[in-house]
């Protein structure tokens, strides 16, 4: 996947969605965090959660940006466009059109969060091909409330021991993909050892190896 950009959310959404939609796969809710214009964090929801526990999906996506204090976010997810003039819910679902929704959220200082959204509908002109229609501008979309709440809580406070590495470990055990840009692992504190009290029994050997790998192997004499 090419490097995401905050200023062109539609291009980022197309880059994320096209390889999956062309192969007939679903697009899972994905969050990308930015520091300034630089993309730093990528969080993708687990497939087993989608469609069953939507609150867990949204919580898993925004929990880490809150803890890391990220104030610029993009969320890409699949969406259905329905015609509300159709009363019958079955007929409304049958006539629904699939699209990709990208929501952009940012906050400067104590200002109100600025939320904007774009809806990208697509066609399939041939096998393994995706043709995108012109984007439709939205005011905020269904992610607006969640993201503005998350930006308001981006105070570097988190669950558990508050270590980002522990939260990432917990998320990744549930299938949530978390990736970080080069050089930002250390800045976000993700190179810190996971709290051993929260490590599953089957992961303890790896956690011990990770802790000892981060420890200096020799002690230099102080001059």
């Amino acid at each position, binding site marked *: *996947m*090419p*490097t*995401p950009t905050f200023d062109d959310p539609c291009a980022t959404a197309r880059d994320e969605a096209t*390889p*999956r939609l062309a*192969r*007939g*796969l*679903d697009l899972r809710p994905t969050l990308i965090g930015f520091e300034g214009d630089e*993309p730093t*964090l*990528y969080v*993708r929801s*687990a*497939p*087993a*959660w989608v*469609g*069953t526990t939507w609150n867990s999906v949204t919580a898993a996506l925004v929990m880490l940006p809150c803890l890391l204090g990220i104030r610029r976010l993009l969320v890409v997810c699949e969406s259905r466009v329905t015609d509300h003039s159709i009363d019958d819910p079955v007929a409304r679902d049958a006539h629904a059109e699939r699209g990709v929704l990208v929501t952009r959220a940012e906050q400067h200082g104590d200002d109100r969060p600025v939320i904007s959204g774009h809806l990208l509908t697509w066609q399939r002109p041939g096998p393994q091909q995706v043709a995108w229609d012109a984007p439709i501008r939205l005011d905020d979309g269904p992610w607006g409330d969640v993201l503005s709440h998350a930006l308001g809580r981006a105070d570097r406070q988190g669950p558990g021991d508050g270590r980002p*590495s522990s939260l*990432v*470990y917990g*998320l*990744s*055990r*549930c*299938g*949530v*993909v*978390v*990736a*970080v*840009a*080069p050089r930002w*692992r250390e800045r976000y504190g*993700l190179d810190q050892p*996971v709290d051993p009290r929260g*490590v599953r*029994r*089957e*992961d303890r*050997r*790896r*956690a011990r190896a*990770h802790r000892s790998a981060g420890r200096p192997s020799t002690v230099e004499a102080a001059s």
Partner: protein
Amino acid sequence: MTDSDRPASSGPFDPFDWVRELVLADLDAGDVPSRLLLAEDGQGTEPGVQIVARPESPHDDASPLSEMACAIAARPPRRAVWVVPGRLRDLADERAAPLGRCLVLTCLDRRPGGWQLHARTIPVHPDGNGLLLAAASDVEVELSPVASLMDDAARLAAGHDLQRTLAVLSIWGHTVATTEMGTDRSFGATLPAPNGSDRHRVRRIADEFEARHTPAAPAASIRRRPAIPTGIPDGWAPACLL
């Protein structure tokens, strides 16, 4: 088919090319065991090692799938395809009866700076009479029972000797063969006998794989398997190293 007349070297790698004849022969015979095919660097696009899983036993410490993954962990291959028989289930209703039988093909393709994983399913006739019900179709890689195991094994890169690992697997009942030079000679016959240290080392890795991934467990265990960090932006790294 040689590398020169295979267009796959420039196009996307299609794992079904590797296993089409093997899978059809297995379906004709009415029994599809798990197969793992590996190709090292320099072997082109043809597999060099094939491992056919031993039968499962209720007394197993680790499932045959976790043991086979040790061959990937010994030395991450250039390409690997894992064929696993499975049952199709509705994710939203796990207690319902299976919808049918399928074969799950999980493919690892190593590239500079990382590797890609793909998963495909092929629905097969429920009576096991050798019929493919539909063409292979891509599925979410997380839905493959061995995808997280494959990713973990490639990431572990334990650095053990591959031939000794294969010899241990053949002692445990797996059928290990090589197809190099167009012959089907037994791989085990050309290997030194593994010692107790080799067995212990491979057993320890297999037990850890089993505990972390439970590849042969029911569908509900999909929520307890580690994330598979594929499809992330170019040059980025997974945030969790465990």
